[in-house]
């Protein structure tokens, strides 16, 4: 893959007959062969399967016509918690080391219908639980900007690979920041759509009321093209909603200077204590750039946002403790080899062996907060706080703000191993992104600078529910006004 290919450029070349899906796949695979190992970004890299998929895409392009296929010939990397039929779907866990998905996630069907195809399954924190990709049972992913550093998580493999231009786009999932934070750490664009706008069917659940699939790309325009295809009501996801908006990519072309006249809210809480100085100065410059692009800046407050991490770790782990109960070694998945076990020990040993440390910790936390006597103090309370946080966001938008602007992460990428021993430090690295999931809002991370050490810094924009049009046009206008997205890691 030529290192500067985007979703958009591939579709254009396929349409003009200069490129086929198979040639795009070959380019992708060649680059992957040399680079993926350094990053440990891929969990499943099956060249024959990828080429077969590309050939099927070409056939479709030939029959239907590239003009009618919004993602004609686009190779897509898929986080390994999204089911692709016939391909392993491990969720980065020993529990599912040999699990082969028996159906396609709804997003995979939509991508294929649009002319795209799958070229690899990506490493991730086990069951999407983590912020550094060090919780994968199959080894940590490395940041392409500096291999000593983490790529962020949990969609770390997806982010690292797109940053390294192994493919123009990857799917990730975002429960508390798992698309946006690694996008920020790897210097690319990561979009978490409004809860309900993209089907979760086929996404292995972590926190069902928070999870959302979204794209990681190198440009906002590519994210918009992906959103055009991914969003939609799905009869197999009862929580999915028909998005009231459409035509995101077109809107970007029609309104390239969308920031002009917008009011951008700056939630002060995110700029107070705890913000890394280098990240802080990147953000200050970003705010100035936004202003230069014609937006008004307004300071706002989100009074309960500091409780978002606490509320999140109650709600997400409670849901996860139930979602992960199905992994018992009876119908599929890891089963302990121990002989002469009774049923209970078979369960307990299989689960203890199959799950990693962080996953077990979160199952325990979630089990505890739902257990008799603690439900009200933790689970009920956390849900009330969640509602208060949602109302804080709504109030900010009601005060005449079009978008909110925050850091994506309070720190730049950290070193491998740096935060492993302290669960809280790791959890707090999601403090800027978690509130967006709690409130079900759309958020996007775009590159906005680099540290002195050359590591990427991202800025997050947040929009009201189901207003991806404002989110994407605003982010696109910022991207046009800056150069950060053009930087590529020195691989």
């Amino acid at each position: 893959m030529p290192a500067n290919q985007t979703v958009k450029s591939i579709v254009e070349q396929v349409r003009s007959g200069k490129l086929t899906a198979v040639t795009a796949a070959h380019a992708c695979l060649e680059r992957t062969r040399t680079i993926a190992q350094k990053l440990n970004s891929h969990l499943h890299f099956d060249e024959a399967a990828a080429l077969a998929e590309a050939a099927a895409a070409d056939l479709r392009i030939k029959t239907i016509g590239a003009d009618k296929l919004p993602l004609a010939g686009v190779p897509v990397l898929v986080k390994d918690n999204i089911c692709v039929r016939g391909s392993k779907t491990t969720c980065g866990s020993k529990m599912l080391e040999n699990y082969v998905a028996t159906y396609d996630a709804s997003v995979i069907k939509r991508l294929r219908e649009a002319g795209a195809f799958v070229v690899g399954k990506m490493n991730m924190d086990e069951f999407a639980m983590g912020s550094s990709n060090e919780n994968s049972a199959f080894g940590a992913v490395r940041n392409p900007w500096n291999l000593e550093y983490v790529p962020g998580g949990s969609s770390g493999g997806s982010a690292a690979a797109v940053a390294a231009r192994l493919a123009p786009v990857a799917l990730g999932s975002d429960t508390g920041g798992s698309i946006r934070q690694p996008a920020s750490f790897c210097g690319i664009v990561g979009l978490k759509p409004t809860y309900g706008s993209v089907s979760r069917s086929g996404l292995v659940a972590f926190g069902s009321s928070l999870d959302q699939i979204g794209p990681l790309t190198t440009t906002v325009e590519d994210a918009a093209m992906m959103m055009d295809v991914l969003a939609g009501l799905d009869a197999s996801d009862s929580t999915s909603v028909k998005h009231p908006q459409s035509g995101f990519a077109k809107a970007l072309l029609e309104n390239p200077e969308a920031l002009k006249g917008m009011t951008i809210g700056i939630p002060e809480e995110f700029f107070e204590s705890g913000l890394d100085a280098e990240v802080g100065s990147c953000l200050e410059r970003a705010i100035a750039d936004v202003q230069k692009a014609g937006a008004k800046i307004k300071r706002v407050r989100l009074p309960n946002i500091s409780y978002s991490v606490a509320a999140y770790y109650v709600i997400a782990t409670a849901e996860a403790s139930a979602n992960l109960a199905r992994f018992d070694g009876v119908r599929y998945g890891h089963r302990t080899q121990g002989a002469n076990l009774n049923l209970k020990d078979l369960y307990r040993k299989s689960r203890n062996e199959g799950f990693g440390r962080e996953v077990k910790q979160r199952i325990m936390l979630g089990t505890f907060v739902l257990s008799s006597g603690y439900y009200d103090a933790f689970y009920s309370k956390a849900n009330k706080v969640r509602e208060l946080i949602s109302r804080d966001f709504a109030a900010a938008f009601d005060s005449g703000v079009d978008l909110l602007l925050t850091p994506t992460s309070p720190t730049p990428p950290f070193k491998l191993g740096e935060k492993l021993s302290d669960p809280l430090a790791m959890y707090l690295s999601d403090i800027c992104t978690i509130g967006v999931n709690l409130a079900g809002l759309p958020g996007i991370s775009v590159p906005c600078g680099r540290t002195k050490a050359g590591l990427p810094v991202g800025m997050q924009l947040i929009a009201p529910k189901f207003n991806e049009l404002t989110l994407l046009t605003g982010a696109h206008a910022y991207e046009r006004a800056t150069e950060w997205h053009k930087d590529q890691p020195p691989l």
Partner: protein
Amino acid sequence: MSKIQVDRELVRKVADLAHLSLSEQEIGLYQERLAKVLSYVEQLDEVHESLDKNWRPDTSRGEAGVSALERRDVVEGSLPVEEAMKQAPARIGTAFQVPRILE
């Protein structure tokens, strides 16, 4: 630290509910880590609740008035049984095998 005493007994009880057979060493590890996280989570107590007394998270979920999506009662067919059984770690015929459920 936490108002809740996270002792080894509590960790054992929770692990039992969660069906995890933790080693003694793991019990110590999770005792420490859970205590730390729970004491952080307890800051939720500080939040002043301004919500209406009748507000419930379950009934207010989803967009206003939107009901759970429903599907028509039409048989869509099942998985071919071999596909359903293929990944079973242990089976007999077309049933999943587990140790004898006693007692």
